[in-house]
């Protein structure tokens, strides 16, 4: 990315933070909290997710067969199915069916994807969006910013101003209730005038040809009921085998999306139905719409068309990495649980149609890599969405894979500036900024070898300005300071202080690149804390875990690092020693990402044998070690921010428990991520977003209850972000336990 491109991107993000950020933040937070509460009420949340996942896996596996079965069922019911190859094909078909008549639509992201409104209007049809949010956007001529709540970026005041300006009502509209009544009435007339009702479909059952529509306003019901002709557009991936298969989705979709146990209406249409219709619309010109004395007409002549859209999906099905995207039920949990999305919204965190974490998969598959490339870097891999997805899609992995493909798709030469620093496995065209951060290990090793000189040079204004211009490293961020003596060197010189024979356990403490070269003090504290609990510690010279290149989409380099780490740690693992990890993002590599990078047995060995340091201390205390050996908290007030990936692995409670056992009084944050996310906060195009996200965390630690507390955080990134935003200097929690 050129310096101009970075500036443009930064400006765009700044503009959205200013104009849409507040509304998006407020609304996504309601959805996010609602989801946590609503899913907690389920006795069998995990089982439901497994069931939903299994149904989708099976359906996508058998998709061609299910399309055929659904087609047969719908045709037997008297409807029509058209499988459209792409958007043009779909629009041609729909335009023919509509034939210039009046159309009322309910919300459908798939219809946004094919841009059917434009095609119909070009053919002379009137098209009205009846979902209130879509109606707002239609009037405002804006694009959706969220796949479930498309006008989430607009405040009530903005909507009121818009309506008052466009419709000039006798009395100014102000409250949400007034706006809703007005829109209901306005659109009610459009519904009476319409001849064609268009809907999407959340699910289509192959056995019976039933459409399931998940709605709340009642407009989809009206669009179908009032008109003679129903056109439904749906991606081919919406098909599930049987009606019974809908049950887990019905229980999960509202909870996962807007945090409601269930939405107001879950419609099961097996069209054509036999509800009476309003027949032909009376047309808007003849003045009959009020005082409409038409009798209802028999629904026997209803017409139904299902347009199943391929538009890249069948190719995604053949793609081992993008296939999972087709399991997506478009619930928006990945967007709502994403710190970056919560702050900037789908107009930045989205492509041509789709937004949020999973949008990378959709956009790459449907509109192509370029559309995904626009926003893909906004996924920091924090993994908070992973446990929220009702069909268990590994969304960070999809983002990583697509990032890798984008890296590889770019042409270019090796850049002389970073070539020496980057002994990686990546193609020449890779963005220089990504290459720099992806090779953090080498950078840190050199930085340490030449410290303190390297730190001093890096701090100079000239160096910072060159770094900003050439590498996109934001000059407003403080750079990490490298220690001259690495943790491994310190430990080699010092040696173990516990006799291996009498030791309670023997561990290999993994020296992640940050702990090894930058924050050695937490490594030293970890060694001392473990030793005080009679654990024999060794610090093998294992390299960077692969997290750094992985986060830049440099998968091949990440794999090479993972293999080297495994080789360095495997003797300890083979000898039955536990691997203790300080940095949660590296532990998450061992526990999650190595599944993609290492042979199965090697991954399993590391996953089973590795522990987060506070988790490990917890285990020691549970198994007879004495808290007296650790520093006494003595009621010290502490504010703790758990790391995003650590929380995804459900490891936060251990830190909390250990600190409390040791007598600390702990308050915790509940933001999804600190916003720093490794290299993200250093990148000049994302610096302001990173700070905006970080401010939400900083606010939680500057309340009346927390402002005087000692701040601790598990992740290096979190520590850097907190250090930048608070006046108190934060530390890793293991340092609180260190008696020294």
């Amino acid at each position, binding site marked *: 990315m050129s310096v101009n491109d970075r500036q443009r991107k930064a400006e765009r993000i700044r503009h959205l933070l200013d104009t849409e950020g507040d509304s998006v933040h407020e*609304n996504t937070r309601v959805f996010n909290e609602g989801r946590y509460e609503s899913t907690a009420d389920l006795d069998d949340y995990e089982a439901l997710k497994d069931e939903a996942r299994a149904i989708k896996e099976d359906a996508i596996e058998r998709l061609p067969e299910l399309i055929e079965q659904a087609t047969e069922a719908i045709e037997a019911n008297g409807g029509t199915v058209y499988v459209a190859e792409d958007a043009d094909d779909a629009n041609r078909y729909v335009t023919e069916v509509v034939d210039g008549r009046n159309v009322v639509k309910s919300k459908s992201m798939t219809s946004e994807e094919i841009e059917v409104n434009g095609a119909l209007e070009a053919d002379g049809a009137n098209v009205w969006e009846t*979902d*209130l*949010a879509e109606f*707002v956007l239609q009037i405002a001529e804006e694009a959706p910013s969220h796949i479930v*709540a498309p*006008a989430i970026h607009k*405040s*009530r*005041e903005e*909507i009121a101003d818009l309506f008052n300006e466009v419709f000039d009502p006798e009395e100014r509209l102000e409250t*949400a*209730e007034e*706006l*809703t009544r007005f829109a*209901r009435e306005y*659109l*009610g007339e459009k519904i*009476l005038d319409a001849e064609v009702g268009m809907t999407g479909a959340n699910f289509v059952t192959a056995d*019976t040809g*039933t459409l399931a529509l998940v709605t*709340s*306003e*009642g*407009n989809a*019901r*009206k669009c179908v*009921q*009032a008109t003679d002709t129903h056109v439904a557009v749906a991606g081919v991936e919406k098909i599930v085998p*049987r*009606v*019974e298969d*809908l*049950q887990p989705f*019905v*229980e999960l979709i509202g909870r996962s999306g*807007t945090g409601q*146990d*269930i*939405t*107001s*209406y*879950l*419609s*099961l*249409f*097996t*069209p054509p*139905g*036999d*509800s*009476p219709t*309003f027949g032909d619309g009376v047309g808007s010109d003849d003045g009959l719409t009020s*005082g*409409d*004395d*038409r*009798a*209802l007409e*028999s629904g026997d002549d209803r017409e139904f068309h299902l347009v199943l859209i391929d538009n890249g999906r069948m190719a995604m099905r053949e793609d081992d990495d993008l296939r999972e995207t087709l399991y997506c039920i478009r619930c928006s949990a990945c967007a709502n649980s994403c710190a970056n999305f919560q702050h900037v919204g789908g107009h930045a965190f989205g492509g041509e149609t789709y937004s949020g974490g999973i949008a990378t998969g959709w956009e790459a598959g449907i509109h192509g890599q370029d559309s995904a490339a626009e926003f893909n870097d906004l996924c920091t891999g924090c993994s908070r969405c992973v446990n929220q997805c009702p069909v268990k899609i590994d969304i960070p992995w999809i983002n990583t894979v697509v990032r890798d493909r984008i890296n590889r798709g770019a042409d270019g030469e090796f850049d002389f500036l970073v070539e020496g620093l980057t002994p990686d496995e990546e193609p020449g065209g890779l963005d220089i900024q990504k290459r720099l951060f992806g090779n953090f290990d080498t950078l840190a090793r050199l930085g340490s070898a030449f410290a303190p000189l390297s730190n001093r040079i890096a701090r100079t204004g000239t160096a910072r300005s060159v770094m900003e211009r050439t590498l996109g490293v934001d000059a407003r961020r403080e750079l990490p300071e490298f220690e001259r003596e690495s943790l491994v060197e310190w430990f080699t010189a010092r040696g173990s202080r516990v006799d291996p024979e009498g030791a309670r356990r023997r561990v290999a403490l993994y020296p992640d690149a940050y702990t090894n070269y930058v924050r050695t003090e937490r490594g030293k504290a970890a060694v001392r804390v473990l030793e005080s609990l009679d654990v024999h510690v060794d610090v093998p010279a294992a390299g960077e875990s692969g997290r750094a290149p992985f986060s830049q989409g440099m998968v091949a380099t990440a794999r090479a690092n993972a293999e080297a780490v495994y080789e360095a740690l495997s003797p300890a693992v083979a000898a039955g020693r536990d691997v203790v990890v300080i940095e949660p993002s590296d532990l998450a590599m061992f526990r999650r990402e190595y599944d993609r990078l290492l042979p199965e047995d090697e991954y399993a060995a590391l996953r089973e044998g590795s522990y987060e340091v506070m988790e490990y201390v917890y285990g020691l205390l549970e198994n007879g070690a004495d808290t007296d050996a650790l520093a006494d908290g003595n009621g010290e007030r502490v504010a703790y921010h758990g790391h995003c990936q650590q929380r995804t692995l459900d490891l936060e409670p251990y830190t909390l428990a250990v600190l409390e056992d040791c007598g600390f009084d702990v308050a915790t944050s509940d933001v999804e991520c600190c916003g720093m996310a490794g290299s993200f906060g250093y990148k000049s195009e994302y610096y302001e977003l990173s700070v905006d996200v970080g401010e939400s965390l900083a606010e939680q630690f500057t309340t009346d209850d927390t402002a005087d507390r000692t701040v601790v955080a598990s992740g290096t990134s979190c520590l850097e972000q907190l250090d930048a935003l608070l006046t108190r200097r934060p530390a890793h929690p293991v340092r609180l336990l260190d008696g020294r």
Partner: protein
Amino acid sequence: MSTEPLATFESSLTEIGVDLVRTTAEEFESTLAPRVDTPAVGTPLPFEGVALPDAVETDPTVADLETARTGVTAVGYGIADYGSVVVQGGPAGEEPVSLYADEHVAVVAASDVLPDMDAVFDRLAADVREGTGQAVIATGPSATADMGALVRGAHGPMDVTVVLLEDR
């Protein structure tokens, strides 16, 4: 049937702000009459010995639907866990009647209140296979948050009342 789903049904309805009125076939008309705000529309009820009050128009025009304050229909099932009712729309017009009036009065037989979604989907699947063209799992009134705050009553009803026929 055990009374447990009914108790759960009632508490779920309370949670979502829907009134539950318990009655019997015999007392249905007198129970319902004071609760029907006119103009009212309705569809014939399939329960033996249960009739709609006279004030309820069962052959409405489009204008009748638009202006109706109350819409009375039978519903196929109640779902105890969620406080939902299943509107099965057919030629008599259950779909428009339950959708256009300000308030939907849903009449359900106690024996049709099922404990959970699992049980309901078994029934719904069987119904679809036997030709039921439409079933709407309706939970509370229509609602929207699209205008900047949560509003009860969007395109559909603003209120829902469930009438439970205890002896049916």
